[in-house]
């Protein structure tokens, strides 16, 4: 039977995430964006909320079962605070979650606990490539079997914390199929390139990464010898990015809504003008519609439904346009004030456009 009410555990997590987003992420967002770095203390504090840990079974050092739906609920709240901040805190999930989804028992036992049980450390993943038609299902980075190893070759972009990463999951094209490989730091041929400069989300430190025939032991292929199905990993990435989009859009909507009620011009608040009020109503409806689509995708993935991957894809497709529409209007409703960097709507507008291109930058 349908229900749209989170359970008690989820409500608590939402609450925790919301409070942190309000009191820590949001106030730090502007400076993080301008300086290009998020205060490590804040990241550590966010990490300690245990959002990732809550969806890792205790066998691997966490304290709960994996539920993408629960992660998505928390992720949205964090993104309402700040997208770059949310992505920074959850960077280790880019590493842990694919192992949890697709790794062998050995991979899980070896790799997950050190991440989960410690302080926040840079663990990350490299999926994004630099092309107009970037497609996680058809990557240009290749993996080739070479004796007991795989050789990884290609260039990745927008890799969070690549400069300090303990280990990175690198996605590559192995005989036409995308496979993940666990790449520890320091391997020969692994070159961290320049710090990326992007339209938005500059508070998240990302780098280009060149793989010049990096030799990875066979055992480091996700799922071991037999490899793994990439679909659930991609679906989790798509759903998570959609949740982030919902968070960013919600932030912009809520800010513009409140602003419009306080901005008094010519004898009335601008929210009392139909043109503004109608924009706000449409923003609210569209945010909520894509939000539910995202929830549904997460729910179906958790249930392992056959059409879950399609739902995740659909949610992201919807989120791309929704985020742009809503964040553009956020700026528009503030008018001239929306264009100056004193107000956060301009940052959300920039982040909003990123949703179209950033699959693989977050995974809940």
């Amino acid at each position, binding site marked *: *039977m*349908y*229900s*749209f*009410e*989170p*359970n008690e555990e*989820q409500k608590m997590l939402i609450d925790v995430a919301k409070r942190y987003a309000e009191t820590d992420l949001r106030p730090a967002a502007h400076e993080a964006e301008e300086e290009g770095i998020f205060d490590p203390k804040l990241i550590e504090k966010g990490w300690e909320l245990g959002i990732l840990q809550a969806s890792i079974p205790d066998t691997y050092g966490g304290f709960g079962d994996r539920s993408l*739906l629960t992660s998505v609920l928390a992720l949205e709240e964090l993104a309402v605070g700040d997208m770059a901040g949310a992505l920074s805190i959850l960077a280790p999930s880019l590493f842990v979650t694919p192992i949890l989804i697709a790794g062998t028992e050995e991979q899980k036992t070896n790799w997950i606990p050190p991440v989960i049980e410690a302080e926040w450390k840079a663990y990350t993943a490299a999926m994004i490539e630099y092309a*107009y*038609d*970037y*497609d996680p*299902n058809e990557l240009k980075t290749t993996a080739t079997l070479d004796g007991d190893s795989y050789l990884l070759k290609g260039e990745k972009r927008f890799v969070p914390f690549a400069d300090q990463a303990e280990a990175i999951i690198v996605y590559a094209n192995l005989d036409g199929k995308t496979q993940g490989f666990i790449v520890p730091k320091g391997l020969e041929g692994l070159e961290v390139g320049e710090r990326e400069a992007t339209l938005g989300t500059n508070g998240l430190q990302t780098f280009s990464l060149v793989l010049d025939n990096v030799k990875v032991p066979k055992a480091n292929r996700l799922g071991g010898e037999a490899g793994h199905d990439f679909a659930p990993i991609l679906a989790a990435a798509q759903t998570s990015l959609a949740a982030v989009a919902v968070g960013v859009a919600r932030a912009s909507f809520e800010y513009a*809504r409140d602003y*419009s*009620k306080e901005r008094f011009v010519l004898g009335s608040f601008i*929210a*009392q003008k*139909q043109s503004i*009020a*109608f924009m*706000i*109503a*449409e923003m*609210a*409806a*569209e945010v*909520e*519609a*894509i939000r*539910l*689509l995202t*929830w*549904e995708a997460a*729910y*179906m993935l958790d249930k392992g439904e056959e059409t879950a*991957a*399609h739902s995740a*894809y*659909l*949610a992201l*497709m*919807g989120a*791309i346009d929704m985020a742009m529409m809503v964040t553009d209007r956020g700026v528009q409703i503030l008018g001239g004030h929306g264009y100056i960097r004193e107000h956060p709507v301009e940052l959300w507008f920039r982040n909003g456009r990123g949703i*179209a291109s950033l*699959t693989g930058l977050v995974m809940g």
Partner: protein
Amino acid sequence: MISFEKSKAVVQAQYLIQTVADNMMRPVSRYFDEEEGEIPWDYIEFMHGALRQMGSASLTPDHEKQKEAEKAKKPRQAYVVMAHQIEMLSWGDVGFYLCTPRGGLGSAAVESAGTPEQKDKFLSILNGEKPIFTSMAITEADAGSDNSAIRATAVLDEETNEWILNGEKIFVTAGRLSMENTEGYTVIWASLDLEAGRSGIRSFVVPAGTPGFKIAKKEEKLGIRVSDTVTFVLEDCRVPYDHILGNPKIEKSTEGFKGAMQTFNVTRPLVAATGLGVARAALEEVKKMLEEQGVVLRDGLPRNKMTSIERDVIDMERMVRSSWLLTLKAIWMSDNKISNAKESAMSKLHAGDVSSKVTQKAVELLGPMGYSREFLLEKWMRDAKITDIYEGTGQINRLVAARAILGYRGKDLR
């Protein structure tokens, strides 16, 4: 606990209605569209019989069952089931759905605003041997979608203890079915005191055959042609005292009016469901027709790798689905007695947009075939457009939603 699982009741209802749609609606959809004014008696008789037998799957939520569920602390789902029924009926043919006996906005008004006695009286007759229709008459020529501007009047004749109704109502859906073709009733919105504004507005049950009542005009429409839309004229039309729904006294507050407006919180998502049923029909037909023409619609591509058609189809799909979830949430709130003025208006405005866009795009995607009356796509584009118009236009619903979002009252945002 968040869940997107359909209950058995929903699955069953969908299955049954899809069979009806396939067999009794789609094959004659075109005929009744072309022969505007003919009444689809076969469908009506069948549905009346079927709904009578099914009992709980009636198109009017069974308030007794709701109460029982409430007592047993079981989750209520009558409205959610109903939304699915309506969506599927509209997937079959939204005009036919509007010709479904027993349901209709009149009985919904009784259900939502009537006393227990009124519910017993006016809902039980739906269950008789012959099909019965109900309708609701709100709109007046000069009031548009704004219900507080109603000029029809109701005066109590203290001698006879009857209400005397006067006024004219336009755009009454199923007005003829309820008042001329069957022994049904209509619910008329009228004012007890024109000076009192919103607070004076009440609704009254007027049965078919009441003297002083007449149908003045039948509209020819863009779409939903099988469903009649008429003008009512009431000239000293008398109904018994207990035909007033809700409190007969005028309070200073507008609670009475607000209570009446609550009806919309239920009906808006249900109207949204009609449009989304049509949109889904169009989406599925487009996919089928394209496939027949040899088009392969690939799944899961990034947008920059798609064809234009693939992108349109994906856009249509996510629009329909997300809008449907918005609608489900709003109506789920009704089942659970959670205040949903905002959500119901949002679902309606969203579905109004989506059903228009999707059905219009569907016609375009089939090129000259879409433009032809050989296929139903063009009909659905005409049918779907009503979604953004009746039960409050998209503009009215934006007003309502915005007020709820902003915490404004009518006077703050006009």
